[in-house]
């Protein structure tokens, strides 16, 4: 049993905080010495992954750096060169690999991404006041040390319906299921989140898939920057601001929902693989089931082995693409090294279902994906399973929800059965429901590594 050093790992890495408010700050390091001062002071305040003995704190703080940020902070060349290619190049340079083309091309991203984004800071809080306080402190620290300059503040908040925070996102789907379960994390094992064993049970994945310094699913230590102490207990993050075209989505769903024999609600479920309340199609193909959703031991406990033709959960539905489980055979072994730890949060005002939405409104999701290898995990899923479909035997069809369809000919197939009420149905002419507004790759160091960076004591041997 792996014993993780929770004092050293950043809280954001090991836990989904589940706070209703957040702000993500993007900053530039101004000067090596002053920048290190800023990191030193921040390191003292960063939230670790330790258990909260006295209940949730009012706010949390976490930090990550781009490759250029680490360089500005004066890490030695040998260390900088030991980081993976994709981290060095950054998300912008890898846009063609990620399918960020057409409307999603970096030329169309928000202006901040043309500036020197060096640091990402995440502040989560229980109330807007506490959020403002913690952000204020952090920005104040930037000014006092003269080590960093705030470039951008991205607010985010859980969508409130009826005054209560929910885990919904703007298209109306309940989000947050299926995050990977791995060894050493202190959390109830939720069946379906880990990997499949030979006898069809669920087991946690190897820690090294998500945190550097621990054995991974390939039974070796994952590639780690040099020196080891800089990398261990750290991880990588893909940060993407995804605008959601809510109006366009609702119009499309309405139109196709009228044509689809199963109706609009069911079609919405087919797009994603879960009903909008979170009920998995695989377990409940005909209706949403709130009791099932509330039941942790069931709400993500399913496989696709009995549904090879996609009649229950379409072969190209979003969750089946993003996490195929056993859909490719081999007991799911092809998928274990392609899991993503998600930490997303919606941003912008929610438009209730009965009100007219506008695609010009600022709303969407701040998508964050963590893992020990951006190339092997996030990039792979984005490129091979979201923006392409050959592994799922879907040719070059793309994910309906997140895929970049500009071009016009894309389609989504709802597999069915030989009765009129459940006939196969094609949703053609897919528009872009999601637009990429910008992002980058960040390294989230351990607390020890933060202090090494602050002290300029990174020695690559």
């Amino acid at each position: 049993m792996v014993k993780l050093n929770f004092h050293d790992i950043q809280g954001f890495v090991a836990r989904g905080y589940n706070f209703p408010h957040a702000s993500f700050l993007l900053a530039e390091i101004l000067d090596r010495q002053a920048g290190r001062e800023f990191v030193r002071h921040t390191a003292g305040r960063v939230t670790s992954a330790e258990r909260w003995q006295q209940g949730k704190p009012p706010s949390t703080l976490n930090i990550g750096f781009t490759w250029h940020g680490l360089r500005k902070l004066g890490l030695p060349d040998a260390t900088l060169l030991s980081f993976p290619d994709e981290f060095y190049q950054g998300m912008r340079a890898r846009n063609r690999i990620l399918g960020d083309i057409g409307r999603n091309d970096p030329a169309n991203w928000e202006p901040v991404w043309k500036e020197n984004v060096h640091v990402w800071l995440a502040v989560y809080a229980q109330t807007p006041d506490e959020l403002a306080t913690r952000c204020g402190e952090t920005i104040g620290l930037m000014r006092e040390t003269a080590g960093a300059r705030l470039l951008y503040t991205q607010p985010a908040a859980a969508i409130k319906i009826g005054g209560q925070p929910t885990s919904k996102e703007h298209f109306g789907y309940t989000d947050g299921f299926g995050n990977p379960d791995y060894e050493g994390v202190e959390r109830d094992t939720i069946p379906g989140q880990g990997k499949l064993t030979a006898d069809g049970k669920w087991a946690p994945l190897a820690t090294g898939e998500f945190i550097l310094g621990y054995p991974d699913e390939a039974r070796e230590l994952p590639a780690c920057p040099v020196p080891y102490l800089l990398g261990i207990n750290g991880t990588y993050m893909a940060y993407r601001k995804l605008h959601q075209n809510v109006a366009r989505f609702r119009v499309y769903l309405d139109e196709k929902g009228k044509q689809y024999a199963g109706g609009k609600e069911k079609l919405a479920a087919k797009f994603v693989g879960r009903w909008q309340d979170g009920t998995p199609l695989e377990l409940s193909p005909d209706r949403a089931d709130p009791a099932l959703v509330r039941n942790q031991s069931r709400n993500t406990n399913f496989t696709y082995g009995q549904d090879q033709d996609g009649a229950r959960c379409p072969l190209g539905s979003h969750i089946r693409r993003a996490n195929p489980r056993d859909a490719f055979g081999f007991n799911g072994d092809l998928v274990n090294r392609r899991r993503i730890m998600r930490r997303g949060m919606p941003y912008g005002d929610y438009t209730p279902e009965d009100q007219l939405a506008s695609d010009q409104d600022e709303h969407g999701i701040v998508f964050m994906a963590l893992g020990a290898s951006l190339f092997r995990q996030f990039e792979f899923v984005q490129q091979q399973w979201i923006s392409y479909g050959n592994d799922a035997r879907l040719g070059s069809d793309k994910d309906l929800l997140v895929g970049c369809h500009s071009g016009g000919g894309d389609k989504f197939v709802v597999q069915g059965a030989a009765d009129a009420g459940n006939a196969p149905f094609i949703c053609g002419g897919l528009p872009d429901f999601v637009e990429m507004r910008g992002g980058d790759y960040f390294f989230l160091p351990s607390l020890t590594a933060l202090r090494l960076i602050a002290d300029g004591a990174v020695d690559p041997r």
Partner: protein
Amino acid sequence: MTNINGKAYAMNAVTPMKTWKTPILLAVFFLIGVFKSAQKGLVDLSFIHFARWVVVQNNQFPRLAPEQPEEQLKYDYLLFFSNFNGTWNEYIDAFSAVLSSGLNLIWRWSEKFPGSVPVTAFKRYISLVQFDTDYYYTAYPYATTSDVKAAIRVDDALQEFANRAAGLTPEEFQQSYLQLLVKVQADIGALGPAPMGT
């Protein structure tokens, strides 16, 4: 990049084997040939159009004229040629993850083979023994082997349907057509471009 043509990648590899190990490998291939179930993994992965292993014993290099010097080799050589879909990394990751015992059975007789698990050392070995293609042709660069198999299924189903369709009433036709749709519904992905190699 001459190893790649459309969605296909041409991999070539050469590894040395001590001559006493060659008969063992030949026996392994014989058994795999006889027991078709051993090939099931390859078919299920659906990554490879065609692949071959060629054992060239140390005295088997073709000699076409007396002026051509005779090869004097200590080792026998195992040549491997594959036409696969997906990126180099995806291909090797998949094989290492689910067919490692098969790979080991074939390559353990080659000198300095590190085993197919863990994958990092395995990839390093492949990089060492791989050599690049100078010219690569395929009659259908835009189709993966999954696309080809899907196309054959659709073609066959369509042919069969068209033969049955003559003389059906519109309602009967529609019902039969619905059954056809269900038959091909997992085989109608688009034949568009593949992601760029990484």
